[in-house]
């Protein structure tokens, strides 16, 4: 094995030598690309660590020569404001209140539907699956106006109008998360041998028990991919929240940032600090579950 490898490496080295594009050149090119890709993130972090008064007087890059200007001041201000409505931390909580239920609901409902589509014995399953795949690319803009109306009618009939409430946002997000969720879960579940289910049936387990005791544990990697993908998708949404929650007292971080930039006296200290808080959560998710995230990206290529 290692011999084959070294032969291959030898070939590759010879090839590279012939071409002149040496390993060093590739390293330099990719090094430059990496620096270019890091600059925006670093600049955001640095701006959030400088006082507002410095923002327009010297570039953030002046920290490289004068690092003493860095301060936690902006962060202590945000934390001292606590969870008061309209603050960064309040928006952080609102973002979580929207994102967590959506993620759980999409994972659960998609798994159930995919289980049904894969292991059910009724005809027409493939047809339904194809329709669901078709729905994956439907732009959510197409549904916004009627859903707002639909919510209002729910209010007129049942006295419960989800428009302008967090459940209203959640309902919409779940719907547009399902096609991809069902697609991903179905593709994974088709790889589970049916014998395992039959065995469960023989031991007298009902469908529900088979689902959550046999299939769900096996499907955990796929569920993890789906959940991470869905979490990041919803966490970063601006449009749906703007339509269903715009003008609310409690708004998710994306709306918080959008409102801040639109206000006449744009306060860069709070925009940059809020943006760092907003990217912090998905970054943790990303670095903890990078493998699953990449798998989700690969599976979701059609979204």
């Amino acid at each position, binding site marked *: 094995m290692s011999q084959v490898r070294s032969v291959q490496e030898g070939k590759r080295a010879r090839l590279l030598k012939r071409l002149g594009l040496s390993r060093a050149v*590739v390293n330099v090119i990719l090094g430059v690309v990496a620096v270019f*890709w890091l600059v*925006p993130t670093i*600049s955001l972090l640095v701006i959030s660590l400088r006082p507002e008064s410095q923002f327009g007087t010297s*570039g953030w890059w002046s920290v490289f020569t004068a690092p003493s200007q860095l301060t936690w001041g902006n962060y202590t201000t945000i934390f001292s404001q606590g969870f008061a409505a309209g603050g960064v931390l309040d928006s952080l909580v609102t973002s979580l209140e929207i994102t967590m239920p959506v993620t759980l609901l999409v994972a659960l409902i998609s798994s159930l539907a995919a289980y049904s589509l894969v292991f059910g*014995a009724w005809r027409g399953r493939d047809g339904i699956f194809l329709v669901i795949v078709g729905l994956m690319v*439907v732009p959510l*803009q197409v549904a916004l*106006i009627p859903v707002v109306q639909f919510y209002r009618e729910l209010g007129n009939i049942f006295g419960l109008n989800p428009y302008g409430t967090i459940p209203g946002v959640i309902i919409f997000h779940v719907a547009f998360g399902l096609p991809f969720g069902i697609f991903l879960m179905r593709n994974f579940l088709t790889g589970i041998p049916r014998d395992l289910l039959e065995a469960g049936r023989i031991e007298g387990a009902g469908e529900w028990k088979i689902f959550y005791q046999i299939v769900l544990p096996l499907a955990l990697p796929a569920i993890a991919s789906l959940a991470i993908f869905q979490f990041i998708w919803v966490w970063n949404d601006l*449009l749906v929240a703007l339509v269903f929650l715009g003008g609310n007292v409690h708004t998710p971080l994306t709306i918080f940032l959008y409102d801040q930039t639109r206000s006449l006296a744009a306060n860069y200290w709070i925009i940059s600090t809020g943006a760092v808080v907003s990217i912090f959560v998905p970054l943790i998710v990303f670095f903890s579950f990078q493998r699953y995230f990449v798998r989700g990206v690969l599976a979701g290529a059609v979204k």
Partner: protein
Amino acid sequence: MTAIATGSTKGPPAKVSRHHGWWRRNGVSLVFLAPGVLWLAAIVVYPTIATVRFSLYDETATKFVGLHNYASVFSTSEILTAFKNNIIWVLVFPFFVTFIGLMVAVLTERIRWATAFKAIIVMPIVFSTTASALVWRTIFDLDPHIGVVNAIEQTVSDWFRTPGAYPLNPSTGETAASLATFNVTTGSGGSLVSHATVHPGDAVMMGLTRISAVTLQTLGAKFPVAPTKMAGAITGLVWNDFSTSQPNNTSTIVSGEQGLPNLRVSLLSSTGASVGSTVTDTSGDFSFSHVAPGSYHVAIESSNFQSSFVGTFWLGSQSLTPVSGLDQTAQSLLSVPLIDLAMIISYIWIWAGFAMVLIGAGLAALNREVLEAAEIDGANEWQLLRKVTIPMLAPVLTVVFVTMVINVLKVFDIILNMAPGSSQGPATTLALTIYNDGFTGGVHSGLASAVAVILFLLVVPAMMWNLKKIKG
């Protein structure tokens, strides 16, 4: 798990009892499917159909107007601009993001720190477009103290042309002539020349106004001293001939006025040739000694007024294509606003990682034997990439490309957050029009719905392509 697995080999295969009905057999399965299907029907399928219906009604959704809204779509300049911008996005973005993703994916296979590199490139995908747009908005800021792009432009620009001590601001229409006040007239090439002819032994006074107080303070300007005459020399003073206490007094020095330091002045002979040059001191005085007899003029050189760096307004709507002289509709259809370029660069930063991951997975799955055969046949690296790798990667490259086309047809967040108010209109896209017409200001649900239906129709080919791929 093991117990169940062995159980399956021992026990007889499960029988579906014949005496149970269809519902009995499939009921649970349908109950499992129901939440998903009902949810999709209520919030995706039904509203999509309802949007088609809305698009045939007027702005308050009460009166049927047929295809009138669709006609309006193509006569509303805001929506035509949106179409134009979507076309720019579709033509430019998917190609570049796929190309960069491919290059990076191919090169990444050769470095030891590939994992770290990939993480750096992929990271922006998990950021919200809102946050990314705000970051890039500062990167492209006009002020070189805020925007790193303009800071770099300024550094490069200053290498080639040094701004003068008294830079003019051309954007406000300032010229050297507008500073001339006393005994000064315009000379050649943006310089100023003394009005009076001077001879050796003379002292000349030249007054300028509209000099910024900040500039004077920075240069350390002092109270002007009237020049003393010297035999065989031409002496003089250039001063800021304006004081708030006596605003109308020109030609004499009064309190509150300052000399103009650091001005480069030269002595012009009667033929107009420069015979010497010097720089004024902090009181604004200068002198040329040992001047040959004759008549001269004193010139204040144009380099003193060389304007300072004016940044590129990356977030502005000035067009990259010539559109002056065209009517408004033609302009909205043919202009390529600079901000589109800035936003596309930012969007590539966000999405290149996605392209890289997909193409990287495609590369890993390539048949290495074909590559090696081509290598043995003497193909060089570029040929290998063009003739073997890219054709073999064609399916995955198509997936990336199509996904990015669908993505930018719906592009929204980056425009709303990156374009300043003045550029929102010129940078608008279909998705932004739907939001603006449907949910802000003067709501027009019929028009917004018509645009939404068109957006939907634009993604239908991609939908068909997806379905074909899945059916095999």
